[in-house]
């Protein structure tokens, strides 16, 4: 017997003043060269069902429409427009809020769906409107749209509980296995498929769909890091797996402050007794290419959960973004890819939305532009957390309950781990639709509220990331075993297959192991903070992973096979052999070259992006990403300190894919040096630095790509050892490739992002690039050589002939940084800036911009001018030193420091006999020229 359902109603809400979304859409359209329809307008539409009286409608109007800002109408509009609504099953948090609010008001709303109405002038050709909507407004992965008025279904989907399906596999030959892997998108290689087939043949049964999917996720590149765990065949003998090399490097440094490295969700270090710091950085590349906002949004959400998953309170977020050049015509963008501007816009919005709403400062980062990132944008998101008296959980123990906390499970993000382990092509956006995840930062904020401070109530914790419950519960159950019932997992909507529940990557979920005696206390705490708590089973002690869906057993696997059954992969590598002969350049227009460098997309001011991130919340930000008297100059590192602490931490980033293209080994060294240099430049202690490594490379099955990866690990481990800065966590994202319709493959350049997190002994004594006092000396630390390969000079002044070498490792740098730090502690340093892209000229210019002061920098006799001003040699810093301290300052460096100029009160920078006005520097850097 079905009750009669009253017809749905709709409330259209329109801003009385111009809606800022109109301008945003217009700009987005103009950015990518689309004709923007005239008379563009945006309204919100709320569809509700329920038996509503006129008074009910009035109350809803009163709640939802602000009379000073909006008008609301319950009429179906007849103007010219389209309506966009979420696809069934996609998170609609606004609709959920309508239900909550209506209940508070006593209005009997049964179901709700929200959407947007885009209106245009009546004479807009339908094709123009369609093109605008498809290219700029709606995202087909998560939304649907219609001309006129949308009538989304408000009916609940009938709950049909499915059963696990058996997949005939044991009789398949290798060709049959390969076909099965392709058909189900398993992304397993032939050797792995054989092992799985034989495992089930040995048990005398066929695997279920859920078992096969569980193995595919657990053994995916994304989860198992098969490449980093592979034995490397170099043609000159085997080499240890890369992950082993990184771990060995950390072990050999043996830093006393490392509490946990390469174990669990994040690295943990302890710079001051009793306070630990958890660090992690992740990539979210493939999802961000398809759905930039959602991809970046959930990338941030995921890495915050990593820190929460090691029982630390998240305190800050970082982001490093790599995009294609913004100035490409739409016609140049390969099929299936979004325009870089749309990607950049969506990614920045996605990062901002998550960080701002969850209440964490987004502080450190970098933005890089290169044509190779057009089809393969990269999004690195990092998170830092702290804990007082860190609860190192030793569970789960047999008998503990398996508890899922937070968001509900839906069909979002199915097979994300296998998806991100594959390369992309023109069809990826269509077939990977379900892989896109939708973020809900408020749900995650509530998880933080509920979990931080409750560490005594659980014995183990992990986040639900790639692979969903299969990965979270599967990893926790390793060795101990678990028995869970998927029918107890709360769902966003009905109709999910058991394997979909098990594999879903729905966001904002954590799994904890709760001893039976603490279940009620934990449940109560979650209720209090509005976090959904679901007890779905127990850790058993028998070493088996058993997953049921009501009476049906859908997975029954030995956790030993799940985690250790994967065959060891062997990967051949062809190591690069770069030319390392220095070759100089000749630039005659020093002044114009400097301005072109300052205005280059990779160097110019990031103010537009940074101001969209809340980098002030928590009141802990002492050095911001923008610095200087007008807050428009780049900082080297950022500094955070809890308001009541005298000490803090500095965060620095090193990344340079252009050096990576030329010489991956030296790039590995240079990015470690850069990250270290950035934190030392603000005043961090060079003997207390921890590093994160994030590798985004192409397909490692190509020997040269694997060789680049091996070389870059050689470089970064050598540098880490030289600086005594241990790696504590890392993540690799491989297969960042796009296959064009002509079959050609396009990989990202070797992109290694190093994040340095260091101890700041005294946050009142931070140093920034801001010039302070005319008359002070400018001292250059480090040596300069004609190392131009991969330089930004070559980007603004293209060079013919042999490119020469990339910047070479500087073995003196560690001692130099220690001496600099000692000088800082003694108050001898007024300002300091690292030399990187664009070399000395750019560094001096940025210091002038920061201080709104002038400077005179001379060129020593006999030194090649182009090399002196623009080379990007490693290990160098430009330091402002008061004349009174100059003698003692120089003595510290034993000839490794050179007075090269002075701070002036002129409104210009003088580089030898070349002069550039300060206004011109500012204009070039901030986009005003």
């Amino acid at each position: 017997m079905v009750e009669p359902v009253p017809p749905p109603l709709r409330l259209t809400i329109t801003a009385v003043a111009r809606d800022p979304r109109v301008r945003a859409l217009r700009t987005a359209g103009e950015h990518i060269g689309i004709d923007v329809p005239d008379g563009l307008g945006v309204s919100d539409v709320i569809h509700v069902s329920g038996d509503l009286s006129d008074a009910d409608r009035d109350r809803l109007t009163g709640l939802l429409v602000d009379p000073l800002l909006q008008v609301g109408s319950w009429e179906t509009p007849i103007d010219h427009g389209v309506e966009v609504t979420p696809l069934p099953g996609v998170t609609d948090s606004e609709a959920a809020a309508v239900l909550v609010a209506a209940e508070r008001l006593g209005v009997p709303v049964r179901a709700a769906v929200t959407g947007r109405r885009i209106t245009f002038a009546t004479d807009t050709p339908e094709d123009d409107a369609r093109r605008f909507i498809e290219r700029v407004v709606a995202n087909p992965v998560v939304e649907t749209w219609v001309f006129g008025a949308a009538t989304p279904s408000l009916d609940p989907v009938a709950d049909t509980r499915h059963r696990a399906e058996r997949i005939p596999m044991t009789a398949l030959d290798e060709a049959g296995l390969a076909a099965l892997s392709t058909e189900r998108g398993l992304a397993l290689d032939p050797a792995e498929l054989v092992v799985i087939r034989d495992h089930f043949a040995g048990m005398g049964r066929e695997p279920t769909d859920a078992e096969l999917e569980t193995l595919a996720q657990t053994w995916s590149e994304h989860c198992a890091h098969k490449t980093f765990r592979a034995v490397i065949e170099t043609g000159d003998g085997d080499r240890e797996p890369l992950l082993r090399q990184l771990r060995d490097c950390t072990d050999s440094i043996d830093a006393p402050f490392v509490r946990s490295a390469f174990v669990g969700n994040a690295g943990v270090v302890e710079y001051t007794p009793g306070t630990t710091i958890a660090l992690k950085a992740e990539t979210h590349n493939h999802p961000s290419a398809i759905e930039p906002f959602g991809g970046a949004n959930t990338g941030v959400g995921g890495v915050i959960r990593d820190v929460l998953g090691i029982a630390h309170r998240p305190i800050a977020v970082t982001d490093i973004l790599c995009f294609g050049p913004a100035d490409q015509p739409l016609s140049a963008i390969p099929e299936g890819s979004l325009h870089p501007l749309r990607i950049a816009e969506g990614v920045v919005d996605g990062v901002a939305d998550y960080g701002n709403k969850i209440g964490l400062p987004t502080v450190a980062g970098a933005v890089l532009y290169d044509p190779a990132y057009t089809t393969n944008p990269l999004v690195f998101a990092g998170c830092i957390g702290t804990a007082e008296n860190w609860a190192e959980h030793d569970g789960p123990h047999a008998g503990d309950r398996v508890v899922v906390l937070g968001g509900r499970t839906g069909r979002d993000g199915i097979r994300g781990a296998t998806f991100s382990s594959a390369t992309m092509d023109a069809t990826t956006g269509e077939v990977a639709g379900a892989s896109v995840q939708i973020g809900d930062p408020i749900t995650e904020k509530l998880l933080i509220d509920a979990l931080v401070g409750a560490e005594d109530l659980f014995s183990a914790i992990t986040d639900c990331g790639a692979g969903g419950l299969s990965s979270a519960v599967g990893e926790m159950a390793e060795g101990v075993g678990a028995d869970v019932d998927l029918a107890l997992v709360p769902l966003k909507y009905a109709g999910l297959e058991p394997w979909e529940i098990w594999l879903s990557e729905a966001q904002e979920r954590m799994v904890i192991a709760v001893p039976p005696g603490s279940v009620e206390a934990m449940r109560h705490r979650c209720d209090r903070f509005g976090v959904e708590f679901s007890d779905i089973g127990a850790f058993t002690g028998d070493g088996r992973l058993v997953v049921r869906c009501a009476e049906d057993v859908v997975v029954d696997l030995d956790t030993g096979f799940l985690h250790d059954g994967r065959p060891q992969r062997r990967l051949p590598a062809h190591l690069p052999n770069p030319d390392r002969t220095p070759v100089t350049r000749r630039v005659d227009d020093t002044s114009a070259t400097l301005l072109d460098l300052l205005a280059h997309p990779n160097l110019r001011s990031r103010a537009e992006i940074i101001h969209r991130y809340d980098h002030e919340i928590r009141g802990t930000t002492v050095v911001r990403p923008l610095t200087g008297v007008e807050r428009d100059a780049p900082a080297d590192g950022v500094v955070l300190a809890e308001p009541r602490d005298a000490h803090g931490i500095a965060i620095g980033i090193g990344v340079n894919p252009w050096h990576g293209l030329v010489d991956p080994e030296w790039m590995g060294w240079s990015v470690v040096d850069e990250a270290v240099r950035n934190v030392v430049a603000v005043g961090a202690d060079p003997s207390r630095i921890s590093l994160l490594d994030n590798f985004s490379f192409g397909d490692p099955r190509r020997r040269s790509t694997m060789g680049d990866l091996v070389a870059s690990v050689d470089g970064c481990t050598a540098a880490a050892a030289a600086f005594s800065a241990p790696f504590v966590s890392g993540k690799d994202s491989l297969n960042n490739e796009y296959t064009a319709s002509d079959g050609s493959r396009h990989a990202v350049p070797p992109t290694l992002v190093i994040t340095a997190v260091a101890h700041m002994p005294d946050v009142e004594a931070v140093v920034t690039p801001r010039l302070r006092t005319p008359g002070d000396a400018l001292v250059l630390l480090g040596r300069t050589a004609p190392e131009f390969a991969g330089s930004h000079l070559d980007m603004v002044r293209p060079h013919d002939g042999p490119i020469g070498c990339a910047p070479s490792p500087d073995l003196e740098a560690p001692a130099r940084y220690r001496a600099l730090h000692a000088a800082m502690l003694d108050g001898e340093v007024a300002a300091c800036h690292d030399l990187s892209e664009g070399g000395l000229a750019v560094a001096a210019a940025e210091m002038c911009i920061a201080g709104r002061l002038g400077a005179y920098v001379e060129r020593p006799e006999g030194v090649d001018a182009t090399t002196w001003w623009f080379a990007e040699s490693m290990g160098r810093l430009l330091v402002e030193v008061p004349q009174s301290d100059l003698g003692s300052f120089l003595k510290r460096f034993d000839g490794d420091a050179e007075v090269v100029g002075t701070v002036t009160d002129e409104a210009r920078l003088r580089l030898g006999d070349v002069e550039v006005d300060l206004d011109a520097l500012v204009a070039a850097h901030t986009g005003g020229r």
Partner: protein
Amino acid sequence: MRPPAVVITGPGTNRDPDVALALELAGADPDIRLAGELAGDRGALTGAALVVVAGGFSYGDALGAGRLLALDLTVGLGDGLREAVERGVPVIGICNGFQVLTRAGLLPGSLGHNSGGSFVCDWVELEPVPDSRSVWTSGLVDTVHCPIAHGEGRYVHPDPDALQANGGVALRYASENPNGSVNDIAGVCDETGLVLGLMPHPENHVLTRQHPVLDADESRRHLGLALFEAGVRHAVGA
């Protein structure tokens, strides 16, 4: 004795620890409370000497910034907040708290999307308006420097000149207007002067080192802490 200050939060409020620190440094005794729990504990509000509605994204801005938390403070708390004001308790709503207080009808006007179209985080300078009735800006001479971090901070009012003539404008942007607020209005108070709403975050400039540009001596003159100290002064009747 430190006057008790209740910091009201909803799910998604995120600057409550920041404002609790500011209250503590200003001499109050802050207690962070969920609005949903205050409904069943009216005594907590009755005993408060100051009330703060903290900033953040309560309920994720669903249905418009502040709307659902305003519902908690009206349908949920009934007349609790109004009664506190009638007893003479200073109330401040910051950022999302300001949005909440306008939606709840405790402050005039409303807050729309920033005229620039997007969320903005930057530092601003706030000039205390001399003829304002607000107890929170009473005695302030120097400008207050502090960050903003909001997407919906454009203050609108049907008659802003009348509001000002009435002493209802407490703070004005002295630096560039960051969001298109009418008459550069950054903070407004109610007719009693007890209730203040503002978009900027004075609670994030309570230590000199938090200032992005100024050295300690100069930073000290422009602390956002001054607002909280004025609120506490009023609460203790000093």
